[in-house]
């Protein structure tokens, strides 16, 4: 993970944050460590776009600042329901 600024908010914390709020799949202790760099970039970019800050795909100072703001615990990105009755 590319980190362009030093901060108490570590890259691991950022990963947890992105996972907690729906930008990355839920962390799984068995499969941990296999998320690709591209997926992480995409997740950071998605968060940046949602937060209305510069979309760089990189964990910069502004992004980390936003990640430290107190917030609602509901996920920003919601997986669509599997119960969709699209097969009429």
């Amino acid at each position, binding site marked *: 993970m590319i980190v362009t600024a030093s901060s108490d908010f570590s890259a691991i914390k950022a990963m947890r944050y992105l996972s907690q709020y729906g930008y990355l799949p839920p962390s799984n202790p068995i499969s941990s460590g296999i998320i690709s760099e591209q997926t992480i970039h995409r997740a950071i970019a998605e968060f940046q776009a*949602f937060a209305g800050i510069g979309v760089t795909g990189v964990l910069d100072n502004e992004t980390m600042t*936003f990640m430290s*703001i*107190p*917030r609602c*615990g*509901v996920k*920003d990105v919601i997986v*669509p329901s599997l119960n969709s009755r699209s097969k*009429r």
Partner: protein
Amino acid sequence: YALQGSRWRVKKLTYKISKYPRGLEKGAVDKEVAKAFSVWSIYTDLTFTSKKSGQVHIEIRFERGEHGDGDPFDGPGGTLAHAYFPVYGGDAHFDDSEHWTINSFRGTNLFQVAAHEFGHSLGLSHSDIKSALMAPFYRGYDPDFMLDNDDIQGIQALYGSKIENKDRTNIYQRTTNIPLLGEEDSQLCLDSKIDTIFNSAEGHTYVFKDEYYWKLSSDGVESGYPKLITSSWKGLQGNIDAAFTYKNGKTYFFKGSKYWRYINKNVDGDYPKDISEGFTGIPDNIDAAVVWTGNGKIYFYKGTKFWRFDPSQRPPVKSSYPKLISNWEGVPDNIDASLEYHGYTYFFKDKAYYRFNDKTFSVDVANPAFPRATGYWWFGC
């Protein structure tokens, strides 16, 4: 704004504070919570009634750490609260480790956070508009708090506006004895027998019933409906017999001995006209009509018979018509409506529908079997 996908089917909602915060007086919390609900009831017909015991729609709890839902709170800062969408019960939980405050620039403002959480309880997801209440980030106490236009649009997309609903009430009270929409299940769920269903040139599917219409989504009915047919298709009437959109992109509506032609929702000339004039060979008072894209021809249904109409031929209806619907295995007589949808032809009768397989010329054998309940499979009841 973003809609999660579920909403309450009743407008009179109840709530209960099962567990109060440690740092605030109960009466003050009651007031702030009521004020937070009122943020949403100002712009809709929703009402929120506080109960002290018994079953309620929305349960409110102030909790610390793990509190039984598998989503533990994390102490001061971080996550302040979370709430469940209507489909998951609507409950709202607040982290009691936070320093909840009222009308103060210190701590975390209870009213603002509660109003946000109740937005989730009502079916709103997080908005990417920074100024919206439904944006996920806490932005500090705002003594002049006002709901953003984005939030208003979101909640009204789910539950309608006060004015729209008032108009609808008057219409219902004036013309019918049908129960008020939104009070209980949608009218389509109470009685899923329809007048007609058709695809528009833009690719939307509309259902007409009595004076009203609904736009379908992939798994039910879009929010914000029903609407009056005449409010969108000026000059058209209610209780339409049949409708279809032809390959020229024009939509035709049939009722009694008359028909209307529209381009999107704009009437395309001087209508209504006589069916006998524009659709020679087709009887009045038809049951249903559909364009079969397999051959581009229009099929009209009435009673036990159907007619095939080809505008490019003279006469447009061959002398071998009408034919018996019973030639098509499994399709009933006296259908209400017909539609081509995702490569299949569907026939609707009373509260059920049949999926016709154009390749076998029979109603599909499937599990669950046809006919199936229209309300469940088409309207999301």
